[in-house]
């Protein structure tokens, strides 16, 4: 039974941090060894999960979804109606996608996604978040100084573009739909998906190029 006792969990945290080896690799190994010895998980399952995140789950999933929305108006409507349902058409649902919401960049709006309180992220559709997304600097600055943050990513917004920052404070997760670049008229879904980057789906990139991401 969980205690739901904040003081107790804080005391346990203090004890663990004071007594565990300081090397992160040894800390993770201690948990893995213990879980394996206790028969809670097989070491091969951990290996396979790591392989899955490296090869199967990642921003290519989000890119496929957006590429279809660009070429298929009905799917576009379904995506903006309920992105959590729409990604099920690809079998991409999973960790933190049930309440997914798509937000579109326009000529006058740029969207930027952050989670200031922890590091919420639509994992099953974008894979593991980049380290910077989880950094204190990004979490602190994205809401207060989004234009300064965007500049560090090489983005300068044209005059007349407002920034809308989405702070993921509940269980909704956000997927930025970038603007389809000129010069892609007639392209198929696969070619379009190849130019959609992870950062453009978080909002730290605005303009896509015609080269594969």
């Amino acid at each position, binding site marked *: 039974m969980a205690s739901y006792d904040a003081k107790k969990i804080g005391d346990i945290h*203090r004890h663990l941090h004071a007594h565990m080896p300081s090397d992160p690799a040894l800390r993770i190994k201690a948990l893995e060894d213990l879980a394996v010895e206790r028969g809670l998980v*097989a070491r*091969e399952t951990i290996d396979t999960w790591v392989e899955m995140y490296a090869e199967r789950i990642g921003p290519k999933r989000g890119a496929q979804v957006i590429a279809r929305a660009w070429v298929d108006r009905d799917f576009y409507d379904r995506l903006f109606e309920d992105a959590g349902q729409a990604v099920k058409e690809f079998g991409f649902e999973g960790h933190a996608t049930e309440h997914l919401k798509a937000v579109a960049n326009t000529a006058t709006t740029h969207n930027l996604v952050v989670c200031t309180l922890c590091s919420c992220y639509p994992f099953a559709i974008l894979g593991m978040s980049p380290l910077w997304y989880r950094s204190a600097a990004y979490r602190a600055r994205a809401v207060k100084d989004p234009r300064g943050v965007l500049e560090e990513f090489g983005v300068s917004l044209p005059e007349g573009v407002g920034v809308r920052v989405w702070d993921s404070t509940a269980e909704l997760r956000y997927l930025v739909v970038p603007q389809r670049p000129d010069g892609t008229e007639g392209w198929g879904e696969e070619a379009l998906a190849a130019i959609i980057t992870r950062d453009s789906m978080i909002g730290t990139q605005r303009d896509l190029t015609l080269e594969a991401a």
Partner: protein
Amino acid sequence: MDGPHDLGGKDGFGPIDVTAPPFREDWEARQLALSKNVPIPGGTIDWWRHGIENMDPATYMSVPYFVKWNLNEIAHRVDQGMFTLEEAVSGRASQPAPPANPASMDMLLERLRANNNSFSRPLETPPSFAIGDMVVTQTVAVPGHTRLPAYARGAVGRIAAWHGGHLFADAGAEGRHVVEHLYTVEFAARVLWGAEADAQDTVCLDLWEPYLAPA
């Protein structure tokens, strides 16, 4: 609580490492895998978060992200009596058990798909606010877990969307099952940060009804 995790708008962090990848070290990916594959019998997502929030602030600020996960996964299992502190620190089981069966890639992909938990719940009472209404947020921090960040306290914003009833995070962190109306509230950046902010910019937060009062 006014914990170390509540980073929105805090100053002094310097530049962002914009090229940082998802993982730099093997142990990072392994911790993610452990978090997703070692069963934990009880608790709620917000009680899990509240564990991280109750780390010592100096530890919170200085250890890597997946070390926080590691500490928290262990802490919650100790809290539930699943591991002893001695087992956790040593990484050795006091009573080994038969090994678990390995899961195949297909099983793990299926497990990932099944992880799309819904937090939406039916709610009889009608919402107090309609889209377009102006609301003001709570001014004082609550003692426990909350998802109203400090930077958005006592601020006036506009209801931009209504999402129906959702499990209320503050109660979830106490193991209570409470449903409240959830809204997206949009704040002008200048309301939150003063005249330094761009007049065109806004910040949207997803906030439950108990955080809000009519403005």
